[in-house]
């Protein structure tokens, strides 16, 4: 977006400068240019602010998750951190794509990889135990309590495919890189699983029932939207590369399956961009923690 808008603005400037037929500035052209220049400024400012950690939408989304001020505060804090980490991760992935591959590599792979790494790092913070008396509830918290079945199934499914790709790469002598693509996808999913376990067992003292509910929702969002989904679309992008590298062994089928996996990864990323909660801003509904 930040690249496309200035390019368009520049084109319009050129058209406006020449009046379309080289006769100088036209009024319409200047108006269009000013509007576009303002748009560019807004986009760049918005992006810069988000990178700097100002995320007004986080608290707006939290308002749609709960009516209670304390719950909202807790959720907004998590949303802000998670969204920022994903943004910085994705942005870094794109920078690496530009600097390391000179835009010849797979942007989806680098972008989703950055998001997955950013999302995982956002969940690895450590809460220091307090000194003196401590309290805790005797509640059991496990990944299974927070992870939606659909997300779990997707992770398992992609893991099985990744394993199959690695195994095929082992058998087919002319498709060795597939082993590494398959193993890498498996490693991404395994790392996400470990991070999920860490989130589920992250320390929680005996807080009020109201805050416990908000904390449970934050953990659910972190384990599903925060970790499972980025890991799945990144692993899928790796699986796509794996299928492509199997082409010498399985022919056009590798290209076909690779293309399908790549498109599915793109679809998943699109539906989960910015944690996939922006729909709450456009489709108001009853708060989750009503």
């Amino acid at each position: 977006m930040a690249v496309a808008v200035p390019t368009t603005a520049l084109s319009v400037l050129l058209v406006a400068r020449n009046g379309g037929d080289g006769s100088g500035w036209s009024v319409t052209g200047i108006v269009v240019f000013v509007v576009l220049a303002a748009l560019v400024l807004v986009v760049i400012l918005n992006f810069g602010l988000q990178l700097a950690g100002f995320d007004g939408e986080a608290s707006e989304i939290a308002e749609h998750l709960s009516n209670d001020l304390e719950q909202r505060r807790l959720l907004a804090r998590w949303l802000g951190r998670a969204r920022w980490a994903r943004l910085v991760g994705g942005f870094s992935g794109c920078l690496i794509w530009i600097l390391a591959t000179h835009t010849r590599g797979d942007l989806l792979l680098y972008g989703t990889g950055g998001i997955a790494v950013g999302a995982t790092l956002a969940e690895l913070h450590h809460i220091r135990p307090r000194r003196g008396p401590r309290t805790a509830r005797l509640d059991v918290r496990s990944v299974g309590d927070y992870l939606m079945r659909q997300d779990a199934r997707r992770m398992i499914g992609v893991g099985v495919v990744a394993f199959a790709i690695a195994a095929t790469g082992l058998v087919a002598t002319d498709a060795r890189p597939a082993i590494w693509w398959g193993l890498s996808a498996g490693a991404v999913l395994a790392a996400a699983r470990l991070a999920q376990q860490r989130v589920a067992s992250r320390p929680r003292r005996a807080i009020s029932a109201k805050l416990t509910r908000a904390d449970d929702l934050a953990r659910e969002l972190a384990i599903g939207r925060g970790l499972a989904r980025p890991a799945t679309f990144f692993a899928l992008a790796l699986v796509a590369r794996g299928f492509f590298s199997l082409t010498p062994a399985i022919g056009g089928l590798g290209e076909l399956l690779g293309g399908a996996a790549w498109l599915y990864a793109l679809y998943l990323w699109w539906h989960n961009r910015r944690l996939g909660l922006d729909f709450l801003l456009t489709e108001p509904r009853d708060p989750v923690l009503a």
Partner: protein
Amino acid sequence: MILSVDPGRALPVYEQVREQIKRMVASGTLQAGTRLPTIRQLAADLGLAKGTIERAYELLENDTVIETKGRKGTFVMEMARATKHQQTVGLAAAAESLVVIARQLGADESTTLDAVRQVWRNL
């Protein structure tokens, strides 16, 4: 079901955990079959070393208050029904300790029995 520990107390922390869980089971707050948090989770929540909770759980297992069912987790056990003889022997030992403490505190018989009744009703 809130556990509270204070590392500053003279009583070891694992004993504090053990005593509270035993009380919760005795009072019915923790029902038989209730799953308890993992050692790792409870240790993290209370900001304690894993070994401390491990020790408390071990002692509770020895007391037949809880049982660990492999990977399924740790569960509260059904309270064993003691025989009449076991009840007499166990209560006599506990009563002896109570009477010694009461005498040390200078409490008379009726005050001590009132305290027992009070605890019996509250638990």
